[in-house]
Protein backbone atom coordinates (compact mmCIF):
# COMPACT_ATOMS: atom_id res chain seq x y z
CA UNK A 1 0.00 0.00 0.00
CA UNK A 2 2.63 2.52 1.09
CA UNK A 3 4.96 1.46 -1.64
CA UNK A 4 2.24 2.08 -4.15
CA UNK A 5 1.58 5.46 -2.58
CA UNK A 6 5.20 6.46 -2.83
CA UNK A 7 5.45 5.22 -6.36
CA UNK A 8 2.50 7.44 -7.17
CA UNK A 9 4.46 10.28 -5.69
CA UNK A 10 7.48 9.70 -7.85
CA UNK A 11 7.76 12.29 -10.61
CA UNK A 12 9.55 9.89 -12.90
CA UNK A 13 6.82 7.30 -12.66
CA UNK A 14 4.15 9.92 -13.25
CA UNK A 15 6.03 11.30 -16.23
CA UNK A 16 5.92 7.93 -17.94
CA UNK A 17 2.24 7.31 -17.23
CA UNK A 18 1.26 10.81 -18.31
CA UNK A 19 3.14 10.50 -21.57
CA UNK A 20 1.28 7.31 -22.41
CA UNK A 21 -2.09 8.62 -21.28
CA UNK A 22 -2.03 12.00 -22.98
CA UNK A 23 -2.89 11.07 -26.59
CA UNK A 24 -5.97 9.18 -25.42
CA UNK A 25 -7.10 12.04 -23.24
CA UNK A 26 -6.64 14.53 -26.04
CA UNK A 27 -8.39 12.52 -28.73
CA UNK A 28 -11.19 11.34 -26.46
CA UNK A 29 -11.70 14.80 -25.04
CA UNK A 30 -11.82 16.55 -28.40
CA UNK A 31 -14.20 13.97 -29.86
CA UNK A 32 -16.60 13.99 -26.93
CA UNK A 33 -16.57 17.75 -26.60
CA UNK A 34 -17.10 18.26 -30.33
CA UNK A 35 -19.94 15.73 -30.36
CA UNK A 36 -21.58 17.29 -27.32
CA UNK A 37 -21.31 20.84 -28.59
CA UNK A 38 -22.44 20.12 -32.15
CA UNK A 39 -25.36 18.13 -30.84
CA UNK A 40 -26.23 20.83 -28.35
CA UNK A 41 -25.86 23.69 -30.78
CA UNK A 42 -27.51 22.29 -33.85
CA UNK A 43 -29.66 19.30 -32.96
CA UNK A 44 -31.00 19.66 -29.44
CA UNK A 45 -34.50 21.14 -29.38
CA UNK A 46 -34.87 24.72 -28.25
CA UNK A 47 -36.00 25.50 -24.75
CA UNK A 48 -39.65 26.55 -24.63
CA UNK A 49 -38.98 29.24 -22.03
CA UNK A 50 -35.58 30.69 -22.86
CA UNK A 51 -35.41 29.95 -26.54
CA UNK A 52 -32.06 29.33 -28.13
CA UNK A 53 -30.00 31.25 -25.57
CA UNK A 54 -30.12 28.20 -23.33
CA UNK A 55 -27.61 26.56 -25.69
CA UNK A 56 -24.94 28.39 -23.70
CA UNK A 57 -25.60 25.75 -21.04
CA UNK A 58 -23.45 23.26 -22.95
CA UNK A 59 -20.34 25.27 -22.16
CA UNK A 60 -21.49 27.11 -19.05
CA UNK A 61 -22.25 24.04 -16.98
CA UNK A 62 -19.09 22.08 -17.88
CA UNK A 63 -16.97 25.16 -17.13
CA UNK A 64 -18.70 25.70 -13.81
CA UNK A 65 -18.32 22.02 -12.89
CA UNK A 66 -14.62 22.15 -13.66
CA UNK A 67 -14.12 25.45 -11.86
CA UNK A 68 -15.46 23.89 -8.69
CA UNK A 69 -13.97 20.45 -8.98
CA UNK A 70 -10.53 21.87 -9.74
CA UNK A 71 -10.61 23.79 -6.48
CA UNK A 72 -11.73 20.70 -4.58
CA UNK A 73 -9.00 18.58 -6.15
CA UNK A 74 -6.47 21.30 -5.33
CA UNK A 75 -7.59 21.10 -1.72
CA UNK A 76 -7.09 17.33 -1.66
CA UNK A 77 -3.63 17.76 -3.17
CA UNK A 78 -2.89 20.53 -0.67
CA UNK A 79 -3.70 18.20 2.18
CA UNK A 80 -1.37 15.58 0.69
CA UNK A 81 1.35 18.23 0.35
CA UNK A 82 1.11 19.25 3.97
CA UNK A 83 0.69 15.81 5.49
CA UNK A 84 2.90 13.57 3.35
CA UNK A 85 5.10 16.14 1.63
CA UNK A 86 4.48 14.41 -1.66
CA UNK A 87 6.27 16.19 -4.47
CA UNK A 88 3.67 15.45 -7.11
CA UNK A 89 0.89 16.98 -5.07
CA UNK A 90 2.35 20.44 -5.08
CA UNK A 91 3.29 20.14 -8.73
CA UNK A 92 -0.38 19.38 -9.31
CA UNK A 93 -1.62 22.43 -7.39
CA UNK A 94 0.79 24.76 -9.13
CA UNK A 95 -0.02 23.33 -12.56
CA UNK A 96 -3.79 23.50 -12.39
CA UNK A 97 -4.50 26.70 -10.45
CA UNK A 98 -4.35 28.85 -13.62
CA UNK A 99 -6.56 26.33 -15.42
CA UNK A 100 -9.10 26.66 -12.64
CA UNK A 101 -8.95 30.42 -12.95
CA UNK A 102 -9.66 30.25 -16.69
CA UNK A 103 -12.63 27.91 -16.26
CA UNK A 104 -14.03 30.07 -13.48
CA UNK A 105 -13.74 33.07 -15.73
CA UNK A 106 -15.45 31.14 -18.54
CA UNK A 107 -18.30 30.13 -16.27
CA UNK A 108 -18.71 33.75 -15.19
CA UNK A 109 -18.50 35.12 -18.70
CA UNK A 110 -20.94 32.66 -20.21
CA UNK A 111 -23.26 33.19 -17.25
CA UNK A 112 -23.19 36.93 -17.75
CA UNK A 113 -23.79 36.72 -21.50
CA UNK A 114 -26.60 34.25 -20.90
CA UNK A 115 -28.10 36.75 -18.51
CA UNK A 116 -28.49 39.42 -21.18
CA UNK A 117 -31.22 37.76 -23.28
CA UNK A 118 -32.71 36.07 -20.21
CA UNK A 119 -32.86 38.92 -17.71
CA UNK A 120 -32.17 41.79 -20.06
CA UNK A 121 -29.00 42.72 -18.20
CA UNK A 122 -25.39 41.61 -18.34
CA UNK A 123 -24.85 41.21 -14.67
CA UNK A 124 -27.22 40.13 -11.98
CA UNK A 125 -26.13 39.68 -8.40
CA UNK A 126 -27.48 36.20 -8.57
CA UNK A 127 -26.28 33.78 -5.90
CA UNK A 128 -24.57 31.49 -8.37
CA UNK A 129 -22.78 34.21 -10.29
CA UNK A 130 -21.68 35.89 -7.06
CA UNK A 131 -20.28 32.66 -5.63
CA UNK A 132 -18.48 32.11 -8.90
CA UNK A 133 -17.00 35.60 -8.68
CA UNK A 134 -15.73 34.89 -5.17
CA UNK A 135 -14.26 31.62 -6.41
CA UNK A 136 -12.44 33.67 -9.04
CA UNK A 137 -11.00 35.84 -6.25
CA UNK A 138 -9.88 32.72 -4.39
CA UNK A 139 -8.10 31.41 -7.47
CA UNK A 140 -6.54 34.83 -7.98
CA UNK A 141 -5.23 34.85 -4.42
CA UNK A 142 -3.74 31.37 -4.76
CA UNK A 143 -1.92 32.29 -7.96
CA UNK A 144 -0.73 35.63 -6.59
CA UNK A 145 0.67 34.00 -3.46
CA UNK A 146 2.40 31.31 -5.49
CA UNK A 147 4.05 33.94 -7.68
CA UNK A 148 5.09 36.08 -4.73
CA UNK A 149 7.17 33.44 -2.95
CA UNK A 150 10.50 32.70 -4.57
CA UNK A 151 11.37 29.46 -2.89
CA UNK A 152 9.48 26.63 -4.56
CA UNK A 153 8.94 24.44 -1.53
CA UNK A 154 7.81 27.28 0.69
CA UNK A 155 5.50 28.51 -2.05
CA UNK A 156 3.95 25.08 -2.40
CA UNK A 157 3.29 24.74 1.30
CA UNK A 158 2.02 28.29 1.77
CA UNK A 159 -0.33 27.82 -1.17
CA UNK A 160 -1.49 24.53 0.35
CA UNK A 161 -2.44 26.28 3.57
CA UNK A 162 -4.30 28.97 1.66
CA UNK A 163 -6.17 26.46 -0.50
CA UNK A 164 -7.26 24.50 2.56
CA UNK A 165 -8.43 27.64 4.32
CA UNK A 166 -10.34 28.52 1.15
CA UNK A 167 -11.98 25.13 0.89
CA UNK A 168 -13.25 25.35 4.45
CA UNK A 169 -14.73 28.71 3.51
CA UNK A 170 -16.38 27.71 0.25
CA UNK A 171 -19.49 26.13 1.80
CA UNK A 172 -19.79 29.05 4.19
CA UNK A 173 -19.47 31.53 1.34
CA UNK A 174 -21.99 29.62 -0.70
CA UNK A 175 -24.45 29.45 2.12
CA UNK A 176 -24.09 33.10 3.05
CA UNK A 177 -24.37 34.28 -0.54
CA UNK A 178 -27.55 32.23 -0.99
CA UNK A 179 -28.97 33.76 2.15
CA UNK A 180 -27.91 37.23 1.11
CA UNK A 181 -29.56 36.71 -2.25
CA UNK A 182 -32.94 35.79 -0.79
CA UNK A 183 -32.65 38.76 1.52
CA UNK A 184 -32.09 41.28 -1.25
CA UNK A 185 -34.02 39.94 -4.19
CA UNK A 186 -36.64 37.29 -3.75
CA UNK A 187 -36.01 34.54 -6.25
CA UNK A 188 -37.73 35.31 -9.51
CA UNK A 189 -36.16 33.44 -12.35
CA UNK A 190 -33.22 31.15 -11.97
CA UNK A 191 -30.50 30.20 -14.36
CA UNK A 192 -30.68 26.62 -13.24
CA UNK A 193 -31.52 23.71 -15.44
CA UNK A 194 -35.08 22.65 -14.95
CA UNK A 195 -35.40 19.38 -13.08
CA UNK A 196 -37.17 17.68 -15.98
CA UNK A 197 -34.67 18.25 -18.72
CA UNK A 198 -35.49 16.17 -21.76
CA UNK A 199 -33.03 13.53 -22.81
CA UNK A 200 -32.09 15.42 -25.98
CA UNK A 201 -30.75 18.28 -23.86
CA UNK A 202 -29.34 16.17 -21.11
CA UNK A 203 -27.22 13.82 -23.23
CA UNK A 204 -25.24 16.45 -25.15
CA UNK A 205 -24.61 18.20 -21.86
CA UNK A 206 -23.25 14.97 -20.41
CA UNK A 207 -21.04 14.48 -23.46
CA UNK A 208 -19.55 17.96 -23.27
CA UNK A 209 -18.98 17.67 -19.52
CA UNK A 210 -17.13 14.39 -20.04
CA UNK A 211 -15.19 15.81 -22.97
CA UNK A 212 -14.08 18.85 -21.06
CA UNK A 213 -13.00 16.70 -18.12
CA UNK A 214 -10.84 14.62 -20.44
CA UNK A 215 -9.31 17.74 -21.95
CA UNK A 216 -8.67 19.00 -18.47
CA UNK A 217 -6.91 15.70 -17.77
CA UNK A 218 -4.73 16.26 -20.80
CA UNK A 219 -3.94 19.82 -19.74
CA UNK A 220 -3.09 18.63 -16.24
CA UNK A 221 -0.70 15.97 -17.51
CA UNK A 222 0.98 18.41 -19.87
CA UNK A 223 1.36 21.21 -17.36
CA UNK A 224 2.53 18.85 -14.64
CA UNK A 225 5.12 17.42 -17.00
CA UNK A 226 6.40 20.91 -17.71
CA UNK A 227 6.58 21.73 -14.02
CA UNK A 228 8.38 18.44 -13.28
CA UNK A 229 10.93 19.22 -15.99
CA UNK A 230 11.60 22.61 -14.46
CA UNK A 231 11.98 21.26 -10.96
CA UNK A 232 13.88 18.07 -11.65
CA UNK A 233 16.13 19.32 -14.41
CA UNK A 234 19.22 18.45 -12.44
CA UNK A 235 18.31 14.82 -11.90
CA UNK A 236 19.83 12.24 -14.13
CA UNK A 237 16.59 10.77 -15.45
CA UNK A 238 15.40 14.15 -16.74
CA UNK A 239 18.75 14.76 -18.36
CA UNK A 240 18.68 11.40 -20.12
CA UNK A 241 15.09 11.94 -21.13
CA UNK A 242 15.65 15.40 -22.56
CA UNK A 243 18.83 14.46 -24.39
CA UNK A 244 17.05 11.42 -25.82
CA UNK A 245 14.47 13.59 -27.51
CA UNK A 246 12.42 15.16 -24.79
CA UNK A 247 9.21 13.26 -25.14
Amino acid at each position, binding site marked *: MWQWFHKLGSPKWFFGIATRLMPWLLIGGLLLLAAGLVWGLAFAPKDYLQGNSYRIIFIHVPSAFLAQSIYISMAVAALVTLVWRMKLADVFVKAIAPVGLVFTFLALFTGAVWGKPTWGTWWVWDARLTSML*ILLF*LYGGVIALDRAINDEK*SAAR*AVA*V*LVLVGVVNIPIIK*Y*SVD*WWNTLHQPATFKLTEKPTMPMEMWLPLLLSVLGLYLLFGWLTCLRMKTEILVREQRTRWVKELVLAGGK
Partner: protein
Amino acid sequence: MSSAGRTLVKPIEQGVGPLSAMLAVFSRDVRVAFRQRQDLLNPLLFFVMVVTLFPLGVSPEVSFLQQSGAGILWVAALLAVLLSLDHLFRHDFDDGTLEQLVLQPQPLFLLILAKTLAHWILTGLPLVLLAPVLGVMVHLDGNSIVILCLTLLIGTPVLSLIGSIGAALTLGLRSAGVLLSLLIIPLYIPVLIFGTGTVAAAGEGASVGGYLALMGAFLVLALTLAPFAAAAALRISMSNS
Protein backbone atom coordinates in the same frame (compact mmCIF):
# COMPACT_ATOMS: atom_id res chain seq x y z
CA MET B 1 27.71 8.92 31.50
CA SER B 2 29.91 11.92 31.02
CA SER B 3 33.61 11.68 30.57
CA ALA B 4 34.06 14.72 32.76
CA GLY B 5 32.09 12.99 35.48
CA ARG B 6 30.62 16.23 36.77
CA THR B 7 27.83 17.08 34.39
CA LEU B 8 26.06 20.06 35.81
CA VAL B 9 23.84 20.76 32.85
CA LYS B 10 20.72 18.65 32.92
CA PRO B 11 17.92 18.25 30.44
CA ILE B 12 14.88 20.34 31.25
CA GLU B 13 11.81 18.21 31.72
CA GLN B 14 9.20 20.68 32.82
CA GLY B 15 8.42 24.17 31.61
CA VAL B 16 5.90 26.90 31.95
CA GLY B 17 2.29 26.08 31.20
CA PRO B 18 0.87 27.37 27.93
CA LEU B 19 -1.53 29.73 29.68
CA SER B 20 1.15 31.82 31.33
CA ALA B 21 3.12 31.80 28.08
CA MET B 22 0.04 33.13 26.30
CA LEU B 23 -0.41 35.75 28.97
CA ALA B 24 3.19 36.86 28.53
CA VAL B 25 2.79 37.18 24.75
CA PHE B 26 -0.46 39.06 25.17
CA SER B 27 0.86 41.50 27.75
CA ARG B 28 4.00 42.16 25.78
CA ASP B 29 2.00 43.05 22.67
CA VAL B 30 -0.30 45.33 24.62
CA ARG B 31 2.68 46.97 26.29
CA VAL B 32 4.46 47.56 22.98
CA ALA B 33 1.28 49.02 21.51
CA PHE B 34 0.85 51.43 24.37
CA ARG B 35 4.45 52.59 24.01
CA GLN B 36 3.40 53.83 20.58
CA ARG B 37 -0.06 55.08 21.29
CA GLN B 38 -0.47 57.15 18.14
CA ASP B 39 -0.40 53.96 16.07
CA LEU B 40 -3.46 52.76 17.92
CA LEU B 41 -5.38 55.76 16.64
CA ASN B 42 -4.62 55.15 12.98
CA PRO B 43 -7.21 52.43 12.26
CA LEU B 44 -9.81 54.48 14.13
CA LEU B 45 -9.10 57.59 12.10
CA PHE B 46 -9.20 55.51 8.95
CA PHE B 47 -12.56 54.08 10.01
CA VAL B 48 -14.04 57.54 10.57
CA MET B 49 -12.63 58.91 7.32
CA VAL B 50 -13.92 56.07 5.15
CA VAL B 51 -17.38 56.46 6.66
CA THR B 52 -17.22 60.21 5.95
CA LEU B 53 -16.50 59.53 2.29
CA PHE B 54 -19.92 58.00 1.68
CA PRO B 55 -22.16 60.99 2.46
CA LEU B 56 -19.69 63.14 0.56
CA GLY B 57 -19.23 60.83 -2.36
CA VAL B 58 -22.68 59.31 -2.75
CA SER B 59 -25.42 61.23 -1.03
CA PRO B 60 -26.05 62.89 2.35
CA GLU B 61 -29.76 62.15 2.13
CA VAL B 62 -31.18 60.66 5.28
CA SER B 63 -33.03 57.89 3.44
CA PHE B 64 -29.88 56.69 1.65
CA LEU B 65 -27.75 56.83 4.76
CA GLN B 66 -30.36 55.06 6.85
CA GLN B 67 -30.58 52.30 4.32
CA SER B 68 -26.87 51.79 3.71
CA GLY B 69 -25.43 53.03 7.01
CA ALA B 70 -24.88 49.57 8.47
CA GLY B 71 -23.19 48.39 5.27
CA ILE B 72 -20.95 51.46 5.15
CA LEU B 73 -19.86 51.01 8.74
CA TRP B 74 -19.20 47.33 8.23
CA VAL B 75 -17.14 47.86 5.09
CA ALA B 76 -15.17 50.63 6.74
CA ALA B 77 -14.49 48.52 9.82
CA LEU B 78 -13.45 45.60 7.64
CA LEU B 79 -11.00 47.77 5.73
CA ALA B 80 -9.63 49.26 8.93
CA VAL B 81 -8.94 45.81 10.35
CA LEU B 82 -7.41 44.74 7.05
CA LEU B 83 -5.10 47.73 7.10
CA SER B 84 -3.86 47.01 10.59
CA LEU B 85 -3.21 43.33 9.91
CA ASP B 86 0.04 43.96 8.10
CA HIS B 87 1.61 44.89 11.44
CA LEU B 88 0.40 41.80 13.26
CA PHE B 89 3.64 39.91 12.72
CA ARG B 90 5.74 42.37 10.73
CA HIS B 91 7.53 44.18 13.54
CA ASP B 92 8.14 40.95 15.43
CA PHE B 93 9.54 39.44 12.27
CA ASP B 94 11.88 42.35 11.66
CA ASP B 95 13.37 42.49 15.14
CA GLY B 96 13.64 38.72 15.60
CA THR B 97 11.14 38.28 18.40
CA LEU B 98 9.03 36.14 16.07
CA GLU B 99 11.89 33.64 15.78
CA GLN B 100 11.97 33.36 19.53
CA LEU B 101 8.19 32.99 19.60
CA VAL B 102 8.27 30.12 17.13
CA LEU B 103 11.02 28.42 19.16
CA GLN B 104 9.15 28.57 22.44
CA PRO B 105 8.41 25.13 23.88
CA GLN B 106 4.71 25.87 23.67
CA PRO B 107 1.97 25.04 21.18
CA LEU B 108 2.49 27.78 18.61
CA PHE B 109 -1.20 28.11 17.80
CA LEU B 110 -1.93 29.18 21.36
CA LEU B 111 0.73 31.88 21.23
CA ILE B 112 -0.71 33.09 17.95
CA LEU B 113 -4.16 33.08 19.48
CA ALA B 114 -2.81 35.33 22.22
CA LYS B 115 -1.29 37.68 19.66
CA THR B 116 -4.49 37.77 17.64
CA LEU B 117 -6.51 38.46 20.76
CA ALA B 118 -4.21 41.36 21.56
CA HIS B 119 -4.65 42.62 18.02
CA TRP B 120 -8.42 42.51 18.37
CA ILE B 121 -8.42 44.28 21.73
CA LEU B 122 -6.19 47.00 20.27
CA THR B 123 -7.93 47.53 16.92
CA GLY B 124 -11.26 45.68 16.65
CA LEU B 125 -12.67 46.59 20.03
CA PRO B 126 -12.04 50.36 19.68
CA LEU B 127 -13.82 50.20 16.32
CA VAL B 128 -16.85 48.61 18.00
CA LEU B 129 -16.78 51.30 20.67
CA LEU B 130 -16.60 54.05 18.09
CA ALA B 131 -19.36 52.60 15.91
CA PRO B 132 -22.35 54.08 17.83
CA VAL B 133 -21.08 57.62 17.23
CA LEU B 134 -20.76 56.99 13.51
CA GLY B 135 -24.09 55.16 13.55
CA VAL B 136 -25.76 58.32 14.79
CA MET B 137 -23.99 60.31 12.08
CA VAL B 138 -25.48 58.07 9.36
CA HIS B 139 -28.94 58.38 10.95
CA LEU B 140 -29.34 54.81 12.11
CA ASP B 141 -32.06 54.37 14.69
CA GLY B 142 -31.28 53.23 18.22
CA ASN B 143 -32.24 49.61 17.75
CA SER B 144 -30.17 49.29 14.58
CA ILE B 145 -27.15 50.80 16.32
CA VAL B 146 -27.39 48.27 19.13
CA ILE B 147 -27.66 45.38 16.69
CA LEU B 148 -24.86 46.81 14.55
CA CYS B 149 -22.53 47.03 17.54
CA LEU B 150 -23.42 43.48 18.52
CA THR B 151 -22.60 42.18 15.04
CA LEU B 152 -19.35 44.13 15.04
CA LEU B 153 -18.52 42.78 18.47
CA ILE B 154 -18.92 39.22 17.24
CA GLY B 155 -17.61 39.88 13.75
CA THR B 156 -14.39 41.84 14.27
CA PRO B 157 -12.64 39.03 16.19
CA VAL B 158 -13.45 36.76 13.24
CA LEU B 159 -11.82 39.35 10.97
CA SER B 160 -8.70 39.41 13.15
CA LEU B 161 -8.55 35.61 13.32
CA ILE B 162 -8.93 35.02 9.60
CA GLY B 163 -6.59 37.92 8.97
CA SER B 164 -3.88 36.32 11.09
CA ILE B 165 -3.68 33.51 8.51
CA GLY B 166 -3.16 35.99 5.69
CA ALA B 167 -0.63 37.99 7.70
CA ALA B 168 1.33 34.83 8.43
CA LEU B 169 1.23 33.69 4.81
CA THR B 170 2.46 36.99 3.38
CA LEU B 171 5.10 37.60 6.03
CA GLY B 172 8.37 38.81 4.57
CA LEU B 173 7.09 39.13 1.01
CA ARG B 174 7.70 42.22 -1.06
CA SER B 175 4.17 43.46 -1.67
CA ALA B 176 2.77 41.88 1.46
CA GLY B 177 0.12 44.53 2.10
CA VAL B 178 -1.71 44.29 -1.21
CA LEU B 179 -1.30 40.53 -1.37
CA LEU B 180 -2.75 40.22 2.12
CA SER B 181 -5.91 42.03 1.00
CA LEU B 182 -6.23 39.85 -2.09
CA LEU B 183 -6.02 36.69 -0.03
CA ILE B 184 -8.21 37.76 2.83
CA ILE B 185 -11.08 39.79 1.37
CA PRO B 186 -12.83 36.79 -0.22
CA LEU B 187 -12.71 35.04 3.13
CA TYR B 188 -14.28 38.08 4.83
CA ILE B 189 -17.36 38.05 2.64
CA PRO B 190 -19.53 35.73 4.78
CA VAL B 191 -18.85 37.79 7.89
CA LEU B 192 -19.74 40.96 6.03
CA ILE B 193 -22.93 39.47 4.60
CA PHE B 194 -24.18 38.27 7.94
CA GLY B 195 -23.04 41.39 9.76
CA THR B 196 -25.00 43.74 7.53
CA GLY B 197 -27.78 41.23 6.90
CA THR B 198 -28.51 40.96 10.60
CA VAL B 199 -28.89 44.70 10.91
CA ALA B 200 -31.14 44.76 7.84
CA ALA B 201 -33.25 41.96 9.25
CA ALA B 202 -33.56 43.86 12.53
CA GLY B 203 -34.68 46.92 10.57
CA GLU B 204 -37.49 44.89 9.07
CA GLY B 205 -38.58 43.85 12.51
CA ALA B 206 -37.41 40.24 12.22
CA SER B 207 -35.93 38.47 15.22
CA VAL B 208 -32.16 38.46 15.02
CA GLY B 209 -31.29 35.89 17.66
CA GLY B 210 -30.73 33.19 15.07
CA TYR B 211 -28.46 35.37 12.95
CA LEU B 212 -26.39 36.42 15.92
CA ALA B 213 -26.08 32.77 16.93
CA LEU B 214 -24.88 31.98 13.43
CA MET B 215 -22.25 34.70 13.65
CA GLY B 216 -21.29 33.26 16.98
CA ALA B 217 -20.81 29.94 15.21
CA PHE B 218 -18.48 31.69 12.74
CA LEU B 219 -16.52 33.03 15.68
CA VAL B 220 -16.23 29.61 17.27
CA LEU B 221 -15.17 28.09 13.97
CA ALA B 222 -12.56 30.81 13.42
CA LEU B 223 -11.31 30.47 16.99
CA THR B 224 -10.78 26.74 16.61
CA LEU B 225 -9.35 26.62 13.09
CA ALA B 226 -7.63 29.92 12.29
CA PRO B 227 -4.83 29.71 14.89
CA PHE B 228 -3.80 26.29 13.54
CA ALA B 229 -3.71 27.55 9.97
CA ALA B 230 -1.85 30.68 11.03
CA ALA B 231 0.69 28.62 12.98
CA ALA B 232 1.32 26.38 9.98
CA ALA B 233 1.63 29.42 7.73
CA LEU B 234 3.99 31.12 10.15
CA ARG B 235 6.33 28.14 10.27
CA ILE B 236 6.41 28.09 6.48
CA SER B 237 7.15 31.81 6.29
CA MET B 238 9.87 31.56 8.92
CA SER B 239 11.43 28.68 7.05
CA ASN B 240 11.50 30.75 3.90
CA SER B 241 13.21 33.81 5.36
